[in-house]
């Protein structure tokens, strides 16, 4: 039952060390745009990944179905779809279902069957959970009990597309050039501990939260066990999965502001906390006491997104790179500045966020320029 890993999910140790490429862009006015620049940027960091995983999260994706949960599900065995659909038909109202359109000629490895379902949860009278929690409960059921079926995207008006291949090829496979979104994140994967597989590619998602990650969460074990107490079961065999669930727990369910969530995942060192004013020190100490099991240990840079917000965060001693840049209403986050410059050569400001200090872009809130960083724009050479 729940809590037991799907026995068919057979890919070795449940942990992976990454040295990946990350890219994210948000238009803070909420205007939707094509992902062409995103594909170009993530492809420019081709050498950071090795073809064993690529993926994208797109927000503002399904305006025609904006009120329905969009479940993207991969089926890796012959019975998986029929068994899953039987489950969906009992527990959800399914308003529309279709295979996710793909280009069969794209350079991806052994693609599984991937469908999307626009649904609302049915509830028994005895069920008092909110819709979001009900949906999570049922996703966990599919992922841990139906062999070879994995729900990898479950938010409204957004979607995750991911698979085994270089990110630019994954974009090609899923025909992402045909979609619009106001927030895009992208990931190129370099798995070193486990084979790359379709479910293990980034982004990791629950409801409308997504996380792309470069690094290694050595706290995976304790994070995972802590999350199980709240009904989150890791089934995708990559460490980043815990970050998506932890953020949903902290922000959506426990109501912490994003800035406080960042201090749970990447708290200051004890020595640094001692230098702070008493009130701040007390808050941070309390967070360590209450949420110590959700601290993400090990090197990481993550780009977290949900509707209306994109957040860049590194571990507290920044053992993985992150460049941030602002141009007008646009916020860019990237593993490398060159990828940003490729799609937006003239920037208002580019900077390297300090470890543990989140960079937050919000719809409707013009980007504030940090005092640090550079206004340096490359001299333009006209040819």
């Amino acid at each position: 039952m729940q809590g037991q890993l799907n026995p068919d999910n057979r890919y070795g140790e449940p942990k992976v060390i990454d040295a990946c490429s990350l890219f994210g862009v948000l238009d803070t006015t909420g205007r939707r745009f094509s992902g062409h620049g995103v594909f170009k940027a993530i492809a420019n960091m081709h050498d950071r990944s090795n073809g064993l995983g690529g993926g994208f999260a797109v927000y503002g994706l399904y305006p025609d179905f904006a009120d329905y949960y969009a479940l993207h599900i991969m089926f890796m065995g012959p019975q998986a779809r029929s068994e899953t659909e039987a489950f969906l038909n009992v527990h959800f109202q399914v308003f529309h279902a279709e295979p996710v359109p793909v280009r069969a000629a794209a350079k991806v490895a052994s693609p599984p069957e991937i469908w999307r379902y626009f649904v609302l949860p049915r509830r028994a009278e005895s069920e008092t959970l909110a819709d979001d929690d009900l949906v999570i409960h049922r996703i966990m059921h599919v992922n841990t009990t139906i062999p070879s079926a994995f729900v990898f995207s479950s938010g409204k008006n957004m979607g995750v597309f991911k698979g085994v291949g270089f990110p630019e090829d994954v974009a090609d496979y899923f025909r992402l050039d045909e979609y619009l979104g106001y927030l895009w994140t992208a990931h190129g994967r370099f798995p070193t501990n486990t084979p790359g597989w379709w479910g293990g590619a980034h982004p990791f998602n629950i409801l409308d939260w997504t996380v792309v990650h470069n690094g290694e969460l050595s706290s995976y074990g304790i994070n995972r066990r802590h999350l199980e107490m709240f009904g989150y079961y890791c089934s995708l065999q990559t460490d980043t999965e815990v970050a998506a669930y932890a953020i949903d727990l902290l922000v959506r369910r426990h109501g912490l502001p994003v800035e406080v969530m960042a201090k749970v995942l990447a708290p200051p060192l004890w020595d640094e906390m001692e230098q702070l004013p008493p009130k701040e020190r007390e808050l941070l100490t309390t967070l360590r006491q209450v949420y110590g099991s959700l601290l993400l240990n090990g090197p990481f840079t993550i780009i977290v997104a949900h509707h209306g917000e994109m957040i860049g965060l590194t571990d507290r001693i920044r053992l993985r790179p992150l460049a941030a840049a602002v141009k007008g209403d646009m916020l860019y986050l990237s593993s490398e500045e060159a990828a940003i410059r490729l799609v937006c050569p003239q920037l208002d400001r580019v900077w390297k966020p300090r470890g543990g200090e989140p960079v937050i872009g919000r719809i409707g809130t013009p980007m504030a320029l940090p005092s640090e960083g550079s206004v340096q724009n490359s001299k333009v050479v006209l040819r």
Partner: protein
Amino acid sequence: MHVEAGRDGNTVEVDAAGLSSRELNLRLRELVTAGATHIKLLNVAGQRYIGSDLDRPVTLEIFGTPGNDLGSFMDGPSIIVHANAQDGCGNTMNGGTIVVHGLAGDITGLSARGGKVFIRDDVGYRAGIHMKQYQERCPVLVIGGTAQDFLGEYMAGGILVVLGLTLGSGHRHRANFVGTGMHGGVIYLRGSVESQQLGKEVGVAELDDQDKALLQGIISEFCGHFCMDPRDMVAGPFIKLYPRYLRPYGPLYAPTHRGAQGQVPRWKVPG
């Protein structure tokens, strides 16, 4: 490959748009072997290891954003970047000069064994980590702005100068763990830091005349690259950070009856 004939026979322009790191560096090697002494690289976009395998005097001028490990292992060329540099700039370089008209990313100048790196603005984490020196080889890393944490971490040699020019008046450097594990070389720091920002392995001293003479030469060179006036900077105030121990972590790995505190400091002014 787009190469244009140079104006004076020895200057060439290379359009790097769409070239992989390997293609670009192969082309540079060919051009330098053919006698080019000045190469302008246009539309550079993240190509790595630029100049890595070049071992003779040549000037590379970079327009666009060079990728990680710019000038790593290089031995002799001069690289001028009219933009920001990414991570690992000057990684293990042996000789030559890198001048960045902007900021640089993490681990700038890591493990450098010689040559000079001048960054006009700020640098990221761990600048100068494990720089080293031997006999006449002594790398110099000059940071015009400020640095993030772990500046000069595990430094084993060389000269690291931080000028603090991007700090607002009254602002101190924010870097923590400055010189953690430092066991060689010297850091000259302009602008204020508090003692808890320093690693346990560094001592603080005032500059003596020898330091000042050394620093004046370095600052003049820095200002020459960026058309700045050295006079304000030379006045400081500077502090000198030096390693207190030759082997700060010796007892952790190879216990001795002397222990770290018994080690003899091996400080001498380089240069």
